[in-house]
């Protein structure tokens, strides 16, 4: 009975984190973007600093009519947002935030493979949405999503493989237990490749060609309204949380910090994740969108060779220090 209770509590906490953190990132995005670009719109709702903007957005989404286009493939159209969102909930279960036993939802033996595999499933949601909408713009968006995923999955995997080689394990807590501070300069190329490829997989700017509003309206999500549309947006923010958390765990040492490692490990993890999330938002407001051919070129001619070079470097150093 205690075991069942333990599992239930852990799952509840993970679910709570899943509900809260993406919204926090969304709210931060509103505020950071408003300040960086001098946008006055999000600064009014609720009075002080426009704190209620996110609440207002939520109310707006809930009020909108849920429309399914007449020619759409009804069931797949309605199923797609769930397929896009749920994988991120599953991934959160495996990300450790502290050194103790209780600081991870569930220890997964092949942790890296688990998180990358399940994250890849989320993209199926976009593809389903793109095809089932019976809309040219949606279909183009879906096509671009698929092309982008195929291009960026490989460098992401290779960069993660480099860390696994360095640590000698594919379990996420295991990697953090093996972490030393000098891994940071050693794995820095892999970290950059992983982060950039992750951004592209989330279709965040500057890699937002699949949802480029000035060309194809909103890509695969063009026909969605109301809560289903909000679920897709939520999936994007949950994706940011997961990507930043994973980069923290794999490359930035997770709960390790210059001081206070004993009780404050989880603070370090959250802090690093938050800083990375800020960088994600920062990139959105400061970089222009990459064109489709530039996107593919960046993946195949820059990121893949860089990731391979990182793996070679990891191998050489690993053999040298043994």
């Amino acid at each position, binding site marked *: 009975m205690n075991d069942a209770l333990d599992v239930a509590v852990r799952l509840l906490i993970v679910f709570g984190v899943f509900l809260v953190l993406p919204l926090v990132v969304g709210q931060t995005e509103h505020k950071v973007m408003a300040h960086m670009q001098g946008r006055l719109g999000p600064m009014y709702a609720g009075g002080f600093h426009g704190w209620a903007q996110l609440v207002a957005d939520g109310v707006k989404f809930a009020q909108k009519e849920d429309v399914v286009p007449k020619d759409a493939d009804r069931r*797949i159209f309605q199923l797609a947002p769930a397929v896009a969102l749920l994988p991120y909930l599953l991934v959160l279960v495996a990300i450790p935030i502290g050194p103790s036993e209780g600081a991870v939802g569930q220890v997964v033996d*092949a942790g890296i493979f688990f998180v990358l595999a399940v994250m*890849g499933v989320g993209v199926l949601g976009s593809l389903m949405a*793109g095809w089932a909408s019976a809309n040219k713009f949606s279909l183009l968006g879906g*096509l671009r999503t698929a092309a982008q995923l*195929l291009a960026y*999955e490989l460098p992401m995997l290779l960069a993660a493989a480099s860390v696994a080689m360095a640590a000698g394990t594919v379990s996420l807590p295991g990697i953090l237990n093996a972490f030393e501070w000098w891994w940071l300069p050693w794995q820095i190329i892999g970290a950059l490749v992983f982060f950039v490829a992750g951004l592209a997989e989330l279709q965040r700017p500057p890699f937002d060609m699949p949802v480029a509003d000035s060309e194809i309206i909103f890509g695969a999500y063009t026909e969605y309204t109301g809560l289903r549309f909000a679920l897709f947006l939520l999936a994007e923010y949950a994706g940011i949380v997961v990507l930043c958390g994973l980069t923290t765990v794999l490359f930035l040492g997770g709960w390790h910090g210059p001081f206070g490692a004993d009780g404050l490990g989880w603070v370090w993890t959250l802090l690093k994740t938050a800083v990375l999330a800020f960088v994600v938002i920062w990139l959105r407001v400061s970089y222009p969108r990459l064109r489709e051919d530039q996107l593919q070129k960046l993946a195949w001619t820059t990121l893949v060779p860089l990731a391979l070079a990182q793996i070679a470097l990891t191998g050489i150093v690993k053999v040298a220090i043994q």
Partner: protein
Amino acid sequence: MNLAAQAHGFLSPTGVEIAFVLVGIATLGAALVTVTTRQLVHAALWLVVALGGLAVEYLLLTAEFIAWVQVLIYVGSVVVLLLFGLMLTKAPIGRSPDADSGNRPVALAVAVAAAAALVWVVVDAFRTTWIDLDGPAQGSTSVTGEFLFQHWVLPFEALSVLLLAALVGAIVLSRKKKEDEN
């Protein structure tokens, strides 16, 4: 010959065994729908269910590493590639009346023959071997890695050469087309 049956009993299955059979039936059903449905994209999505079901079966057999690699490669990449290809065609929403190539009997014969061969090989290879599901995981990453790179290195390398050949072939084919255009 009867060791397995004596030690464990086929008539009093454990929870894991029941789950294994149920997931297996669901997987088989999804696979059947995949090959019989007339809606092309639905076929690809049912394939996701079938491949995911297989991953669950691996998990139930404690082969965790294989299960996640199955999801990563097949659901995450192969199906995405399939859907990408389908989007490039005129796959309509609703039924494709010309989706049947008229090869049904031949396809059925080949499928039954392949299934029979596989079942026979697996049954013959593992006869009375019983996986202890309660003990430590026997399909963990380190165990899989040791087996793969100690006992099965040669087939592994041969497979990678095969993949390399396919890669080179694909490049050759795609380059040829461009020269024709010029």
